[in-house]
């Protein structure tokens, strides 16, 4: 057997060239197995242009490669292999190399069980290779491997992977105040094909890509060449696309300061592409919500939901009146009533004093007029109302009395 490049976990000396070389080796080994099993060459994968891939995206495709290699090894040898762990830090080519190497080991175990003695040659090192090229090479290897499986990746595997994505999206939609729940699924549509699911996932990826742009988180650029050629998409291809989505969601999830753990996913049973299509509908709704929220608050994923906090405060202010207790409201109303009462009383008092002062003036004028009438201006006093309270009891008495301030008039 040819010796693969074994590297320590996250070896920084490993370049993408090394990873590409290893993936090429995997593909050559898969070719040998395919010939032994007398299987035909796989159809080309759906026409998708990939640009700007990051090592983390390549890593998750490599994980899919390992899963498929592990399943195939189990089918042939009844031995299971331990799954590689996802590093909780920035992923580098060394991490990808490690996963590809583990997949290669499983593939070589299959070769051994099939007694294939031929060895694939380690291709030359190409240092100019880009992450996107490595990505595409792993996607092709995944497709080749899927065809060799006794039980190729089926809609239920895709369903499970999309459920994982929904788990991460749910945590991304959490706020400080409340945990989010996946939205209602769209109506079930019958007779859907893997190609329909594939295209829906590409739309979800577009949303994530835009979210990444707003959040300043670089993400792979995926472009469909011709939608009509997607009819050949198989559940294995859809699974690869779902894995890519999961990788991006994990990346966004890691951007949050205190992300809640995504929920565990269990075997959800046999599914058809129509079920998967319906489930992708949930993911699309979540992506749309997340995008809307990120558009409103671009720093949403790193600033612990500042917007939701402020909106919640507004709600609290509006609610404050209603949340006060009855006693406080009664006290307030009593005090208000007392204040109004005192003000009215004040007005009454001022008015009374004013009227009293006016009355005194009238009395004086009346007295003056009466006096004048007594002295020849008859009838003049009749036009004035003489107040009831007078110090004199009769007109004569009144006339005899000198009104104050009338001395000068006499």
């Amino acid at each position, binding site marked *: 057997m040819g010796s693969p490049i074994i590297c320590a976990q996250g070896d920084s000396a490993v370049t993408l060239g090394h990873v590409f070389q290893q993936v090429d080796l995997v593909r050559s080994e898969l070719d040998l197995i395919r010939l032994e099993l007398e299987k035909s060459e796989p159809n080309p994968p759906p026409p998708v242009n990939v640009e700007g891939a990051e090592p983390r995206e390549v890593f998750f495709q490599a994980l899919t490669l390992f899963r498929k290699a592990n399943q195939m090894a189990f089918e042939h040898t*009844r031995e299971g292999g331990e799954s590689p762990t996802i590093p909780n830090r920035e992923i580098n080519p060394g991490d990808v190399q490690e996963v590809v190497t583990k997949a290669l080991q499983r593939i070589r175990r299959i070769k051994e069980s099939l007694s294939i003695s031929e060895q694939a040659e380690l291709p030359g090192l190409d240092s100019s290779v880009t992450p996107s090229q490595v990505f595409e090479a792993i996607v092709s290897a995944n497709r080749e491997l899927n065809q060799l499986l006794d039980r190729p990746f089926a809609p239920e595997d895709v369903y499970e992977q999309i459920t994982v994505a929904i788990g991460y999206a749910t945590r991304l939609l959490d706020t400080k105040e409340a945990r989010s729940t996946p939205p209602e699924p769209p109506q079930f549509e019958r007779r859907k094909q893997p190609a329909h699911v594939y295209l829906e996932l590409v739309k979800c990826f577009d949303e994530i890509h835009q979210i990444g742009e707003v959040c300043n988180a670089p993400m792979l650029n995926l472009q469909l060449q011709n939608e009509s050629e997607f009819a050949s998409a198989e559940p294995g291809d859809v699974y690869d696309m779902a894995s890519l989505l999961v990788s991006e969601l994990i990346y966004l999830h890691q951007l949050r300061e205190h992300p809640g753990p995504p929920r565990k996913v269990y075997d959800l049973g046999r599914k058809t592409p129509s079920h998967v299509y319906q489930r992708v509908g949930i993911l699309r709704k979540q992506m749309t919500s997340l995008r809307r929220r990120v558009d409103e608050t671009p720093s949403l994923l790193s600033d612990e939901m500042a917007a939701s906090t402020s909106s919640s405060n507004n709600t609290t202010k509006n609610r404050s009146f209603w949340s006060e207790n*009855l006693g406080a409201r009664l006290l307030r109303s009593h005090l208000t009533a007392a204040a109004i009462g005192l003000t009215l009383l004040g007005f009454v*008092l001022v008015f009374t004093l004013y009227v009293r002062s006016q009355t005194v003036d009238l009395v004086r004028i009346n007295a003056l007029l009466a006096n004048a009438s007594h002295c020849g201006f008859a009838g003049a006093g009749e036009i004035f109302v003489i107040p009831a309270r007078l110090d004199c009891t009769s007109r004569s008495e009144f006339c005899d009395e000198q009104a104050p301030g009338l001395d000068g008039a006499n």
Partner: protein
Amino acid sequence: MEAKTEHTETLPQIKNLKRLLSELKEVQWRIEEVAHTPGNEPARNLFDNRMQPAMDGIYTMVTSMIDLEKLEDGEGGSRQMLAAMADFRGSFTRSQATLGNLVTSDTSEDEVAFLNQAGIAKQRLKDLTDDSDLLIPEQKLLLNRLKTEFPLFVTLSDEIIKARKSPEWNIANAILHNEAVPISRQISDILSEMASQQSRLMVAGVARMDKLSRVATASSFFFVIFMAVSAWIVS
């Protein structure tokens, strides 16, 4: 001022309540999602989807070996080998049934019985391997395949027993007991606390109202006197 204090006391509780209710809703979603799926009982899922096909394969192989031995028997085949094969098949079949019971009921008797029967099956397989020189080439081929499959039976049975003995043998129930019930208890506690708090406030409010009515009566009496005095002064 007093109202403000009461409000600041209630606000964190309401926030906490809102958060807990959202968690409860999510937990409920998870329970509904998993409750009627094969994954709800990992042990049964393993038994039905992984163990049964493997066991059917083993059973078919050993039956084929017995059939071949029967044919050979007529021409001088070994009764000893036939007995070993039949013994293997018998103990293997019984262990399969016992494992099925174990998945359903999880009793220690079933576990002991299963381990005994699986032990016998393993011993008989070893006997067959030791005497493999007596087998014809087709039987040897079947025996080799049997030897490849049998470790899977052992590994899977260990996994099944472990999964059945786990407190999370029924996922929906486990989520209900470990997550939903504690959350709902917390919610009940907060609600009770809030209710008693509101009740205290209510009592205080009533007392305050009583005082206020006394003050209002006194102030009304004062106002009446004041008005009378004012009227007297004015007149």
